[in-house]
């Protein structure tokens, strides 16, 4: 497999950019987020846009339109997205899931009235969500540093590189006339934001620092999506579930430094066992 080539160049790219960021003087303390300074600025910008435009629009959308219309809009764009999901599942060698996605599109586009009704889910074909960034990840390309994109939000260097293809593969891009396409795109974005209104309230409650909370949640979530909720089978060594931590219980709190080593080794099989559960 030619996996090593891209990952090497990624590393180079990452290294180059890390150096650049360090030179620019905005290297953060988190190794996965070397551009923290830049990211925070974009995060704040996105936040402002959300506050003055997107969130109000989504709130109105959610409270004014009847529920079935919102579901219909969501299903319609969801059906379009299923096409690319199917392709990505095939690219990852997940034939069964890919076939199920093809069936979904076939069913929903016909009996589901162009995707407005999600009859496939009713029939037990579960919806998946795959994009090219996930496919690259599945192929072994590491995510690279965390990156917040203007308007688009949390991402990584790898996923940003994959983005042009995701955009190209979106069937809505080819809708004619342009006016319909533009209106549709706006509705789609507002609908997606409306789906996140409750979650963003929660985020505000839970986070001490929303930027960090979003970042750390996003990176974990992305990783877990790539391997469909399982542990990364390619992980070089099994870390204990909580890295750099010896899982201290109060009773062993004052273990002298020298004794930590055997403890760490002891925890290795435990982690292995956890993984194979």
């Amino acid at each position, binding site marked *: 497999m030619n996996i090593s080539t891209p990952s090497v160049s990624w590393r180079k790219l990452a290294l180059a950019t890390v150096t650049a960021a360090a030179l620019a003087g905005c290297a953060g303390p988190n190794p996965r987020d070397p551009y923290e300074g830049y990211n925070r600025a974009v995060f704040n910008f996105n936040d402002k846009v959300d506050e003055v435009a997107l969130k109000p629009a989504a709130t109105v959308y*959610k409270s004014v339109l009847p529920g079935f219309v919102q579901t219909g809009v969501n299903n319609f764009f969801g059906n379009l997205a299923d096409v690319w999901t199917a392709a990505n599942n095939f690219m990852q060698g997940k034939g069964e899931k890919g076939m199920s996605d093809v069936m979904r599109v076939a069913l929903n586009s016909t009996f589901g009235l162009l995707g407005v009704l999600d009859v496939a889910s009713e029939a037990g074909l579960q919806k998946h969500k795959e994009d090219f960034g996930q496919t690259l990840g599945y192929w072994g390309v590491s995510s690279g540093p965390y990156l917040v994109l203007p308007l688009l939000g949390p991402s990584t260097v790898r996923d940003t590189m994959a983005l042009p293809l995701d955009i190209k593969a979106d069937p809505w891009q080819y809708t004619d006339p342009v006016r319909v396409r533009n209106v549709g795109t706006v509705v789609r974005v507002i609908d997606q934001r409306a*789906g996140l209104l409750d979650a963003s309230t929660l985020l505000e409650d*839970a986070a001490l620092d929303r930027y960090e909370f979003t970042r750390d949640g996003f990176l*974990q979530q992305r990783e877990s999506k790539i391997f469909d909720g399982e542990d990364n089978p390619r992980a070089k060594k099994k870390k204990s*579930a909580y890295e750099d*931590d010896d899982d201290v219980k*109060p009773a062993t709190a004052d273990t002298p430094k020298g004794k930590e080593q055997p403890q760490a080794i002891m925890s290795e099989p435990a982690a292995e066992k956890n993984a194979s559960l």
Partner: protein
Amino acid sequence: MKLIKQLMACATVAFASVSFAATAPAANEAPDALVKRISSEVLDTAKNDKDIQAGNQKRVMDLVETKILPYVDFQRMTSLAAGRFWREASPEQQKQLSTEFRTLLIYTYSGALSQVKNETIEFKPLRADPSDTEVEVRSQVNMTRGEPVPLNYRVEKTPSGWKIYDINVLGAWLVETYKSTFASEISKGGIDGLIKTLSEKNKKLASRPIKAASAK
């Protein structure tokens, strides 16, 4: 005198064995059965209680306090989130930190719970050995729209039964998500700084309007 003493002793033993018998089933309950029982109890209550659906924060918090908290090991959760700093904290600081973190999580969880409408929870088969003392219970919340949300729990066996010490929502573990925030707060103002930030956050959450959670 002697008779009374003996009686007392007997009574104590009897009482002890009765109370042991009462707690024994809970301790023997399988971890996934435990999580399943708690979540169905809580969800049923949340869906059927009009006060909760109307956004009565106090009712939700009562529900969380009585039904969920007895099964969560907050000290372990906090120690994992604090990582290596936990050992540097004095017992007093450890106590304060767990208490504040616990309060924050109660507020968050209560907020989530009052948004429950028609969602259902589906449990996946437990992949564990009967002798395991730490297991992961996996479930997913089936939403009215969109993909199902994965919801997993790390559970450990303690002398008083199984206890939850970490939760995974949408692929992100709670402890891991708080970890670097904790670390950066500690690097700014020490452990006391983190405790202070948490308690200020909690005060803010406590003083917000009662209906805030249900305002869409």
